[in-house]
C-alpha cells in the first residue's frame, strides 16, 4: 500500500520535476534580436518593442490632433470655444501587447484631447462625469478660484460642471483630475494638454504633442512602462515621419508620477527650448531637457540631414521601458515653407 502510494507520488512528481521533457514539438518560428541575433522558437514570440498591440487609441493620430472646440463669437467680439469632455473610469485598454490596464479617461483616451485656444479666447468646457468615482478637471493657467476644479467635486454617474475662463497665459499647460487620492486619479490617465497660442501666433511648423507618461500596471507605486503618448515603444515601431528643413514644434508635457524626473533627448540635433512656452524667446539651445512633474515646454528644431533619429529619455531605464521613438526624416525640399538655413536669420535671439 505504502509502496504503491510512494510509486504514484514519484511518477506524478516526474511531471513537476521535468516539465520541459513533456512539451510537444511544433513548427519553428524565428525572430531577430535587437543586437542582430536570430532566435528560433517552437513557441510564441513576445516582443513589446516591435509587436503592435491591438489598440483603440492611436498615438499617431493623437500626435497631431488639436481640438479647437466649437467656435463662436461673443457679443463683445471675443471668441468662445466650447468643448465637451466626458470622464470614464471603467475602460480596459491593451497598453502593450497582451497587457491590459484599467485606464481612466477623458473622452475615451489617455491622454485626453488636446484643448487648444488662443490667448484671450473664452474657453467653456462642459464636463460630464460618467465614471463611477468623483472626478474634476483642473487646468493649469490663470482662472478664477471656482474654476480650479479642486473643491467643486463632480459626482460620478452623470455629474456635470461647466468650466469657463479666459485662456491664458500663452504656452503649454496640463489639465488633470484633481480629486483625492490625487496620485491615483492622475496615474490612471485623467490628464491632457491645454495649449494657449499667443495672439500674434507662432511661426508655421509641423506641430505635435507629446505627453510623457508612465503606467503602473501592478500598482506598486513604480511605473512598469514609460512612453511618449501612453503606448510604450509606439513611435519606435511607427516612426514619426518629418521632412528635412521643416520646422518641427513639439509641445512636451511631463505627466510621469512616482519618478521625480523625466527628460527628453534628441539625436543628431539640438532644439530651442521654451519652458512652459510662455516666452517667445527660447531659454536653451540643447538636446537634453530635464522635466519634473507637470513641467512642460515647447521644443523647436529642424533636421538638416535625412535618416532615422532616435528621441528618448536619457534616463535610460525609462527608454528601455518604452519611452523611446524615432523621427524618420525624409529629404523633401519641394514644398518646404521654411527658410532652409537653420543657422541664419534669428540667431541673435539666443543671446550669448
Amino acid at each position: 500500500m505504502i509502496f504503491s502510494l510512494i510509486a504514484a507520488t514519484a511518477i506524478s512528481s516526474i511531471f513537476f520535476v521535468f516539465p520541459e521533457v513533456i512539451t510537444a514539438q511544433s513548427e519553428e518560428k524565428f525572430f531577430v534580436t535587437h543586437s542582430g541575433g536570430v532566435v528560433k522558437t517552437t513557441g510564441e514570440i513576445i516582443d513589446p518593442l516591435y509587436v503592435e498591440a491591438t489598440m483603440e487609441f492611436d498615438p499617431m493620430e493623437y500626435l497631431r490632433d488639436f481640438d479647437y472646440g466649437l467656435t463662436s463669437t461673443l457679443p463683445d467680439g471675443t471668441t468662445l470655444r466650447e468643448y465637451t469632455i466626458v470622464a470614464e473610469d471603467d475602460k480596459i485598454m491593451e497598453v502593450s501587447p497582451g497587457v491590459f490596464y484599467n485606464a481612466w479617461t477623458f473622452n475615451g483616451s489617455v491622454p485626453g484631447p488636446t484643448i487648444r485656444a488662443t490667448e484671450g479666447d473664452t474657453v467653456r468646457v462642459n464636463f460630464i462625469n460618467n465614471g463611477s468615482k468623483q472626478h474634476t478637471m483642473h487646468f493649469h493657467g490663470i482662472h478664477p478660484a471656482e474654476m480650479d476644479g479642486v473643491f467643486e467635486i463632480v459626482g460620478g454617474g452623470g455629474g456635470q460642471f461647466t468650466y469657463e475662463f479666459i485662456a491664458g497665459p500663452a504656452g503649454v499647460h496640463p489639465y488633470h483630475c484633481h480629486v483625492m487620492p490625487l496620485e491615483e486619479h492622475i496615474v490612471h490617465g485623467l490628464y491632457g494638454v491645454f495649449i494657449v497660442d499667443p495672439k500674434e501666433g507662432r511661426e508655421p511648423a509641423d506641430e505635435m504633442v507629446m505627453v510623457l507618461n508612465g503606467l503602473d500596471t501592478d500598482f506598486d507605486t513604480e511605473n512598469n512602462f514609460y512612453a511618449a503618448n501612453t503606448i510604450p515603444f509606439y513611435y519606435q515601431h511607427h516612426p514619426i515621419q518629418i521632412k528635412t528643413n521643416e520646422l518641427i514644434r513639439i509641445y512636451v508635457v511631463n505627466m510621469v508620477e512616482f519618478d521625480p524626473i523625466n527628460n527628453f533627448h534628441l539625436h543628431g540635433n539640438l532644439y530651442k527650448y521654451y519652458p512652459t512656452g510662455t516666452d517667445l524667446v527660447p531659454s536653451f539651445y540643447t538636446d537634453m531637457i530635464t522635466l519634473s512633474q507637470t513641467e512642460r515646454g515647447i521644443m523647436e528644431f529642424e533636421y538638416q540631414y535625412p535618416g532615422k533619429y532616435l528621441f528618448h529619455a536619457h534616463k535610460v531605464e525609462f527608454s528601455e521601458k518604452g519611452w523611446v521613438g524615432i523621427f524618420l526624416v525624409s529629404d523633401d525640399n519641394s514644398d518646404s515653407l521654411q527658410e532652409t538655413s537653420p543657422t541664419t536669420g534669428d540667431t541673435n535671439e539666443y543671446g550669448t
Partner: protein
Amino acid sequence: MELDKKPSKAKTIISGLIPFVFVMIMMAYIFGPGSDLLDLGVPLPEITIEMIDFVGSEVHATVRNTGPIPVEVVMADINDRIQPAAVEPDRFLERYETALVRIPFEWNEAEPYTIGITIEDGTRFEKEIEAAAPRLQLSLELIGFFAIIGTYVGIIPVMIGLMWLPFIRRLSKNKYHFFMALTVGLLLFLGIDSIEEALDASAENLAASFNGALLVATVTILSFLGLYYSGEKLIQRVKDSPYAKPVAIALMISIGIGLHNFGEGLAIGAAIGLGQVALSTFLIVGFALHNTTEGLAIASPLAKEKKSVIRKLVAMGMIAGAPAIFGAWLGGFMYSPFSAVIFLSIGAGAIFQVIIIIMKWLREENENSLSSASIVSGIAVGMLVMYLTSIFV
C-alpha cells in the same frame, strides 16, 4: 465484537461509496452551472519563476502558473528593462502548467541579474540570480568532474570514517554504547539538517501553492514508514543468526546516509550549476569533513560482528557514499527544485528510521533503558560534533 452474519461484499462496497456520492453531489452543486455560491472575492493570478538558466546568449526562465486561474505570459524583462522573448510551448498557462521563456540577452558571467515576467493584467513577478553562470552541458569531462567531487564528498570521507572500526572493537560495552549513541546524535543532526535544507529549497524555489513545508513532512513520513516496514522485514529475516543483526543495522544506516548524501550531492551539483563555484569548493571541504563522521556511524554497529567485515564495510561505504556522485550529476545537469526537495525529504525519513532502529537496539542491550550516562552523553556529543563540523559547510 462479533458480526452476526458475514456482510455481503456488495453492501460493503455500496456503504463505502455513499459518502463519495454525496461529495460529488456537493461538488456539482458548488461548481455546477448557474451556481454562483462561491463567487466571492477576486482570484489573484500568480506565477512562479522556478528556474533560471544562462544558455549561450540567452537567459531561460522556467515559469509555472501557481495561482488559482489561467494566466498569459506577455512580457519578459531583465533587471527591470523590457526585453523581447520567446515563450515555449505557448504563452497561455493553465493551473500548474509551465512554460519556458527564452530571452536573448548578452549576459555577463558572475554578475547578478533579476529576471522579471509580466502577465496579462500587468502584474510583474521576478526572480533574482546572485551570479550568472552558463548552464552545464552534458560532457564526459564534466561527468568525470562531478564523479570526482562526489567521491571526495561521499566515498572517501565515509571510508576514512569506517577506519575507526578496529578502535571501536577494542572498546568496553559501555564505551561501545557511547559510540552507538554518538551515531544517534550524528544522525539526528543529519535528519534535522536534511529537513532544514528541504524547507529552504522549497521556500526559495517552490510556489506557496505546493505547500512546501507539508510536502517535506509528507514525503519524510512516507519515506520513514516505507523504510521502517522494509527494515523490520529485513531484521526478521536475519533474526536467526545472532551476528547478522548488527550488519542489518549497519546496512540500514548506510542506506539512510546514502539517501542523505544523494541530497547533498544535489546541493553541490546545483551550486556548481548555478555558478556559486567559490561556495561550492568550500561546500566540498565542509561536506568531506562532516561526512567522515558518517563512516563512524556505519562502523559502530559492525563492531559487534566478529567475522571479517572488510568486504561488507567497503560495500556499505559505497552505498552510503556513492549516491553523492549521482546526486551531483543530477543536481549539476538537470537541477529541479522539486526533485531537490523530494530527495532531501526522503533522506530525512530514512535517517529517522535508522535512529529508531538503533535506539531500539540500544534499549534492548541496555536493560530496557536509555538513561545510562554513556547513551545520553553519546547523543549529546554526536550532535555537538556535527554542529561544530557543520560550521565549515
